[in-house]
């Protein structure tokens, strides 16, 4: 019994490293009305998307958050990721992309509806990214004494969340999360790993 539980726990940890959720309810475009050859719940029906400013959570020492260099670094990481996401969705998935410099509304379907309508898009992409400082030697030694608890916490910590909201209803229709602490010196993220299973947008030829 214990072995079975342990195996399930390990499997759960492995599966939890990345998680994709998609709605099963019908997805409704707002900017075009053309016959669709898709399943009603296909995210690709939202052919025109706005990518909002990326929300970056970057570790900082006390007082560092006010320093111009730290702020510039955070803004540069945010802009770089926003451009990469927009570029990937446009070139590999066929979405019409609009990069917008405004942050994500705090919460609520009504807020998403209002933003989507104002931007004249079918959906809104919200990207959040978490960066941690690399582990120090002290932290690594403490991990041994704390029976790997910090390691497991680091492995299950979110490092990326991408959410797509539908303008017509303001509902969340797709979300992808990646887990595992990363530091900001790491190479660029492989977006195929994030958007690989997302349906392509309904082609422009069928949106006329």
């Amino acid at each position: 019994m214990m072995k079975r539980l342990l195996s399930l726990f390990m499997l759960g940890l492995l599966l939890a490293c990345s998680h994709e959720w998609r709605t099963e309810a019908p997805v409704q475009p707002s900017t075009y009305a053309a016959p669709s050859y898709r399943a009603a719940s296909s995210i690709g029906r939202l052919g025109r998307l706005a990518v909002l400013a990326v929300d970056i959570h970057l570790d900082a020492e006390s007082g560092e958050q006010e320093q111009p260099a730290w702020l510039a670094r955070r803004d540069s990481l945010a802009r770089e990721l926003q451009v990469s996401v927009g570029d990937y969705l446009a070139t590999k998935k066929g979405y019409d992309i609009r990069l917008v410099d405004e942050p994500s509304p705090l919460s609520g379907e009504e807020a998403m509806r209002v933003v989507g309508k104002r931007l004249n898009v079918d959906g809104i992409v919200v990207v959040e990214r978490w960066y941690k400082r690399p582990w120090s030697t002290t932290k690594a030694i403490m991990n041994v004494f704390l029976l790997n608890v910090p390691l497991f916490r680091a492995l299950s910590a979110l490092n990326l969340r991408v959410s797509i909201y539908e303008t017509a209803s303001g509902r969340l229709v797709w979300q992808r999360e990646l887990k595992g602490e990363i530091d900001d010196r790491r190479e660029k993220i492989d977006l195929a790993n994030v958007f690989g299973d997302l349906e392509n947008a309904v082609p422009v030829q069928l949106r006329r």
Partner: protein
Amino acid sequence: MHPAEMPGDTSREWMQFFWPGMASGALGMAAPPMYASALVVGGLILAPAALVMSGRERQTWQRVTGALGSVAFEQELLHALTRRAQGMVPGDAGSATSVELIVNAYGLAGARPERLCFIASAVLVVRVAGDERLRDSLSIAESDASADAPPAQCAGLDRFAAQDGQLVRDTAKEYAEVLAVMALDRLQAAMQ
């Protein structure tokens, strides 16, 4: 390439772990006590896991193959072309002009089940009084795609297999419509 393209079933690759697992288990029976448990446990994990993973992947491939087999791509393309061409292309009875759209390939392509792409390619041929006036290739693929083609639908095998191959059927239907539009756009451009 031929219609209904499909990469090779990779489920057998899991079976390469089966016999080492069995061997490890058998060796554990005869090994000294210090090594026996590791070998037996290793074998007990490896061999059944290989069988389970192989069986699971085979079922996934079968769902995708089944979905692809259920697609009547050429008929859907013909319907789309006929429907969309109404009023666009002069169709005089006894006209000496013939339009052919030859499907070269459609289906899934890719080296690994983690990333496969649905591709389709066709050739548009226009003849007037037997003389070939236009020959143009239409391709929706990850590489060497036509300039006016949308990006190819790529995803993992599991994603294509989900809901009995819904994404395969949707993509095939949509590609037929897109190829029809692309062909008619070329025809219109050629007529002008």
